[in-house]
């Protein structure tokens, strides 16, 4: 396989990748910015290289610095994780030039899928069902009005180079278009360095379902089933499950085959995800390909028993896929909750601070992918994802019950987290019955404090008895401190001091 792998990322995903490397007997190299010296990925890795100041542009997004660290460490592979440089073909190309293996799809496939309008054009010609909309970028605002009229409101403005909900705006009516146009364009420019945007029909009440793909250099591609990712806030995923409660075997096979067909068409290799929208009438549309390891890959791993990161290394090293489609079986149900440092009671705004204490859940069927530790300062420079809590159950019902149990064991003190939101979802009827779509958060979540069981009187009691005990102990300590002194002396001293 590889001798030494540099992980061009931070947080939970860097830790996840390091763990796979260690199990496979490969040395690991972490890179870190100024504020990540104490981060878990640095502590877990065999080697660590400083790559610059906190802002991602000067560290984790700086290809030169990463290639420099890789050369200094004599790494023979680079895993980009997700986010940062994962879908930037320039890193894959830099690796090719340096003779280092990039753990991901070839730069050409990345380039093709990363440019949404050109990939839409290609796929439309091949007869792949797409969300109705444009296959090239908008020229100006006037054209946006014209195209929106043609497609029919509501529409979605999207960044051609985009992903992860950035540079995306919903437009319900023509009045909203100018503002949304400007906002999407500037967000696209700042997030992706490319301000081209286009329009798609907004499919209302749709579910977001994606197919996990795995391919090798020899044109073999398999799919590992689907993930349901409809619980979102601000177009960003919060909860994922595998399988989806909306699909039956026939649909699963049809969508899986379609995803494999697309991957083969663009000569895809390594891990990737085909994203689909699934509407109220059971119709599905291909949305885009995420040419990387996904945040939510552990739910697929749980039901298939396949370590996707290890498979990535194997195919990148030139091995043939060891899996054929008829030998991939899924068992049970998995759910993932993303634990963000955000305040669900205040519009999911980031919550900065120091993690004062943390206790992670464990026990049967529980997996925590974490980049957080007690004493950690939550940096404002990066994604506020702290950890992912993933559970497996024999049935969906068992998985939900297990998630509730695991959430109740999870303590993170010092910053606000999305744990209360997840507790709410796991107790919500629509979710439990599997009847939900991407509008769930907007429709169901209320910011009034939600409590499964009213524990506030116990919490008040706890604070009072701890305060009481502490004060008693302090009083005792003061007594013993002065006990070496004669009581007359200490009394005299007290009197003397009182007089002055």
């Amino acid at each position: 396989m590889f001798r030494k792998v540099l992980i061009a990322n931070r947080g939970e995903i860097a830790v996840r990748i390091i763990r796979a490397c260690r199990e496979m007997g490969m040395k690991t190299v972490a890179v870190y910015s100024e504020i990540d010296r104490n981060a878990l990925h640095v502590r877990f890795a065999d080697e660590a290289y400083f790559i610059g100041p906190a802002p991602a542009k000067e560290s984790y997004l700086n290809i030169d610095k990463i290639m420099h660290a890789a050369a200094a460490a004599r790494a023979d592979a680079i895993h980009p994780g997700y986010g940062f440089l994962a879908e930037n073909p320039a890193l894959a190309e830099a690796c090719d030039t340096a003779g280092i293996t990039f753990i991901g799809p070839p730069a050409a496939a990345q380039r093709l899928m990363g440019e949404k309008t050109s990939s839409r054009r290609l796929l439309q010609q091949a007869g792949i069902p797409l969300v109705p909309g444009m296959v090239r970028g908008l020229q100006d605002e006037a054209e946006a009005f014209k195209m929106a009229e043609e497609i029919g409101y509501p529409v979605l403005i999207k960044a051609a180079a985009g992903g992860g909900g950035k540079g995306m705006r919903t437009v319900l009516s023509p009045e909203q278009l100018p503002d949304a146009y400007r906002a999407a364009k500037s967000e696209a420019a700042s997030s992706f360095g490319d301000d081209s945007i286009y329009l798609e029909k907004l499919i209302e009440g749709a579910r977001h379902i994606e197919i996990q793909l795995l391919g090798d250099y020899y044109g073999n591609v398999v799919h590992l089933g689907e993930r349901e990712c409809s619980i979102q806030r601000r177009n960003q995923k919060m909860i994922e499950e595998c399988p989806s409660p909306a699909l039956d075997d026939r649909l699963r096979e049809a969508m899986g085959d379609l995803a494999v067909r697309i991957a083969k068409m663009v000569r895809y290799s390594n891990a990737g995800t085909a994203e689909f929208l699934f509407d109220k009438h059971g119709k599905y549309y291909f949305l885009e390909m995420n040419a990387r390891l996904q945040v939510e890959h552990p739910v697929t791993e749980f039901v298939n028993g396949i370590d996707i990161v290890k498979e990535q290394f194997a195919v990148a090293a030139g091995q043939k896929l060891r899996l054929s489609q008829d030998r991939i079986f899924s068992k049970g149900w998995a759910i993932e909750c993303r634990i963000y440092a955000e305040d669900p009671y205040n519009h999911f705004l980031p919550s900065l601070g120091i993690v004062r204490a943390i206790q992670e859940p464990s026990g049967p069927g529980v997996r925590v992918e974490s980049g957080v530790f007690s004493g950690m300062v939550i940096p404002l420079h990066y994604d506020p994802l702290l950890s992912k809590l993933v559970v497996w159950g024999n049935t969906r019902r068992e998985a939900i019950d297990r998630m509730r149990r695991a959430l109740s064991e999870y303590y993170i003190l010092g910053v606000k987290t999305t744990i209360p939101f997840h507790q709410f979802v796991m107790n919500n009827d629509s979710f439990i019955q599997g009847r939900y779509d991407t509008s769930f958060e907007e429709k169901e979540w209320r910011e009034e404090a939600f409590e499964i069981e009213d524990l506030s009187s116990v919490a008040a009691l706890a604070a009072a008895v701890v305060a009481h005990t502490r004060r008693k102990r302090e009083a005792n300590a003061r007594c013993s401190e002065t006990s070496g002194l004669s009581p007359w002396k200490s009394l005299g001293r007290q009197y003397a001091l009182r007089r002055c």
Partner: protein
Amino acid sequence: MKYKAQIQDQAFEIEVDHTGEAMQVLVNKDPHVVDLQCIDGTRLFSLVVDNRSYEAFVEEANGRWLVAMEGQVFEVDLKDERMARLQKVAPAPRVPQGELPLKAPMPGLIIAVNVQRGDAVRMGQPLVILEAMKMENEVRAPRNGLVKEVLVGKGQKVDQGALLVILQEGD
């Protein structure tokens, strides 16, 4: 001891009696038997309330109490009743104004003079150390100010009420 706890708009009156073997706690007049154990020596507690078992992280940060139980985090505003009452009735501590003579609180020996004429001093800063009955007593500045005059020196014996230092207004 009585406490007042506030969590958002919910108020609780809590009375802790720990004179006997077991801790008795009244929460809004409802009696409970409580056993509290600190697990990690700092913030992790096991709490058994009438044989119901809870685990809680309890932390005080800037006067606010954070209590995390079963995945939920509560912010508790806690005051003991005596403090609450005192805060209400006690006038703001009187800070002496103007020129201020500092006198020896008892007869003794000056073993150190820490300031000179013209020094700026902060409230609470020790100015003179006076040994009396083989104990060292610090004479501290009762407020911020400037040293107008130092009237004693090291090794000098003084009577009770002798003038030591005079402070004047200024920063």
